[in-house]
């Protein structure tokens, strides 16, 4: 988990000035926010934690 966090921070530090990358990061944040905050259940059992 530390490695994942470290990689995310490093990636952001390297590309944070690139505006397209910043837009992509905000969209990534929104998508993961809906996935992690939601708890729906779909046909076949797939859900927000996936």
């Amino acid at each position, binding site marked *: *988990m530390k490695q*994942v*966090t470290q990689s*995310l*921070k490093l990636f*952001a530090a390297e590309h944070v000035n690139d*505006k*397209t990358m*910043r*837009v992509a*990061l*905000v*969209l*990534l*944040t*929104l*998508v*993961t*926010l*809906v*996935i*992690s*905050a*939601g*708890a*729906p*259940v*779909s*046909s*076949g*059992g*797939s*859900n*927000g*934690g*996936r």
Partner: protein
Amino acid sequence: MTYLVLASIGLSIVIAQVRGGKLSQLGEIRFRLWWVIPVVTLVQSALVRSPHPEERLAWWHPRPVIMVSSYLVLCAVVWLNRDLPGMRIALAGIALNLLAIAANGGYMPVSPTALARITRDIVSNPQIGSVVRGSKDVVLPSQQALFWVLGDVLVIPPPFPWPTAMSMGDVLVAVGVFVFILGTTRPHRESEQDK
């Protein structure tokens, strides 16, 4: 769920564009501790995919404890960003889901009836107290679930391509993100005319 997430965010982007908004303005947003959210998603994903008993675990086991903690972390991060458009609505949704999950031992309750309406391949009734595989949910009738009204009670049945049962919290989170995208991509011209 992945399709629904992509569809809802995609729809917000399309509406923002139609209204003359600029997606590039999302890049000007400073979302504090943004990286915590993908990490929480990874942790939850590992939890729901990890092998576990068919029946729900007692609340002191790592799975329910980590699930509830992950929601607390999400609440804290979204609270830090509460001044951004739509984030207070999303925070309310996360808090409602947290309440339902914490009250039911670390699992989101879904009634057997709701589950049967969305699951085409189930022949017999789902077992009460069983965990819905690959999900955060536990099958509980409304009489046995605490705050059942906050559980996955809103059903989108077939012929919808991805039949889903969702909670009021889920809807609020989606609305919050929708408002966020529309609010942050709004053309500057509009706000200048307001002054």
